[in-house]
């Protein structure tokens, strides 16, 4: 926590803040920003339209393998679509969902955690029991059921992930808020006449922020996985939009024809999630956050 608070208050102006000097944070940030850039620049980078079919050139292996073609660097799928282009465009959905859904889940989870931890009593009890009820649904099952209720589409995928994963933030943050609220300086702020709102935003939030940021980073990795799961079973965005999960579902059917097509999206998901996790782990260490983990 010290690293965060000292730098955010501008104690060390000359040096980079500690969390920006951590090799883990830098490595994680590098991977994640690279993928975000690829997603942004997809129309410039992709050699083909991701939906363009080439029925005379199906199941091409990657360009370096026997029978590969330079026009399709990573080969083609069962409909002769360019694997590289689909991977690049798939990054768009993955990153959009990762960023928007985890921020949404953070917002709901953090607000409720601060309310519960700060006010305690019946409010805390009610929020705590709501989290209990939510957690008795296995996350995959709940997101699938929500997608059935909401219908497919990008907005609903994001909404489903937010509605499932806010509990991750709420549960962990509430415990932290509870600890911080008991500190003397918080009591002092109240005595000086700070309102509840001001106490929470000015005194408690700065102390819980490191944990919050770490959790967001880890949640982004989880969101990428959940979106891949939903698109794998065909309950994510419209089928015309390429996603990594959908590429995996297609490739699973033709596993003997082209194991390549299964390998690349698996790698893409793995690298993205690893990037977010390394970033989160680096933040956790440099911001000195104690964290009980749980996962999808």
């Amino acid at each position, binding site marked *: 926590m010290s690293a965060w608070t000292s730098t955010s208050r501008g104690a060390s102006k000359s040096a980079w803040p500690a969390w920006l000097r951590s090799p883990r944070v830098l490595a994680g940030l590098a991977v994640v920003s690279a993928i975000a850039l690829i997603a942004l620049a997809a129309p410039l980078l992709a050699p083909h339209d991701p939906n363009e079919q080439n029925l005379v050139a199906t199941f091409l292996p990657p360009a370096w393998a026997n029978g590969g073609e330079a026009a399709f660097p990573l080969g083609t799928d069962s409909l002769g679509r360019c694997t590289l282009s689909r991977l690049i465009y798939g990054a768009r959905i993955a990153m959009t969902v990762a960023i928007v859904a985890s921020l949404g889940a953070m917002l709901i989870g953090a607000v409720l955690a601060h309310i519960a931890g700060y006010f305690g009593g019946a409010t805390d009890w009610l929020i705590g029991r709501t989290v*209990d*009820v939510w*957690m*008795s*649904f*296995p*996350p*995959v*099952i709940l997101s*699938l*059921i*929500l*997608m*059935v*209720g*909401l*219908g497919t589409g990008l907005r609903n995928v994001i909404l489903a992930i937010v509605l499932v994963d806010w509990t991750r933030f709420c549960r962990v943050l509430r415990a932290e808020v509870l600890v911080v609220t008991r500190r003397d300086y918080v009591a002092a702020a109240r005595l000086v006449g700070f309102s509840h709102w001001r106490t929470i935003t000015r005194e408690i939030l700065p102390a819980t922020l490191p944990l919050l940021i770490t959790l967001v980073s880890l949640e982004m*990795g989880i969101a990428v*996985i959940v979106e*891949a*799961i939903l698109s*794998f*079973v*065909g*309950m994510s965005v419209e089928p015309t939009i390429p996603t990594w999960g959908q590429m*995996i579902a297609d490739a*699973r059917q033709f*596993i*003997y024809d082209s*194991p390549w097509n*299964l*390998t690349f999206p*698996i790698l893409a*998901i*793995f690298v993205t*999630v*690893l990037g977010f*996790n*390394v970033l989160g*782990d680096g933040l956790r260490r440099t911001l000195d956050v104690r964290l*009980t*983990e*749980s*996962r*999808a």
Partner: protein
Amino acid sequence: MTSILPLIARRILVSLVILVIVSALLFCILRLLPVDPAAMSLPPNATLAEIEAKRREMGLDLPLFRQYLIWAGEVLRGDFGASIHFRRGVAGLVGSTLPATVELAALAMLIAGALGIAGGLTLFHVRGTRKEPIADAGSIVLLSLPEFLWGLFFILLFGVALGLLPFTGRLSAGFERPIITGFLLIDTLLIGRPDMFVDAMKHMILPAFALGIAFSPTIMRVLRSSLIDVYQEDYIHQARLRGLSERRILLHHALKNAILPTLSLMGVQFGFLFGGTLLIEVIYSYPGMGNLMVDAVRNADLPIIQAVGLTYCVVVLVINTAVDALYLVLNPKLRVA
């Protein structure tokens, strides 16, 4: 000594209340569905009047609360309705697929626990040495691979490239599936067919390992950090003074206390793992509840989605309650009411 039975009874009561709320929630979410179950269960040439009559017959014109009560009452009598798509009783469909999923989850949990404890001891053992960064990096990589990526990776490696193990279904062609208890591993032994048991086991190795390995890193990390906490305690220091070997201290003294938080975490993890079976089943064409659920989702088969969703929750609640009760039995410190 205070009795722990009232505490356990209270825990069970809480779970029952949660179950009622969960079932109501499930019911409401699925009523958001933009499809009309009445129209779906009639032939496409049905008239509007016929659909309206069917709606009334199915009770869809009643207020949501009344509909829930009717459904809950039927569920309590074991009647989950009939599948719109399969035109069969849902209870039978769930009953025939649940054992397969439970078998898979139990085997996976065993693997996750074994790997988690071995990994946690290793992580703890290498702390402060040069191997620590490597072990740490390893555990982050493990943490970044969700079960379905492991599942696909195992299929590519052991199924396709090496051709070592089967990766579709539960039994090789030519075996007639015995149905006694519904648990295939038990049934094959009951009818005295060890060859069939081995075949069924071979089909389960890849999916169970994929699930187990994906859920082991969390167990590893919690075991390591609770071992680190336990090592701060005086009795470890005293054991050293008594001249016990480090190995004996770790395995006989520290592990016994560090395993409690790990056990409680494994209870929570089981919920996640049980949900994780869904995707593993789809990837391995494993005939359990997950495949039933995904088929139902694709067909918008409401009665099945409702029943399977509820069954998942019931299993998770039962396991969590059981783990909490076990925790109370094993940890005398918690018995203060």
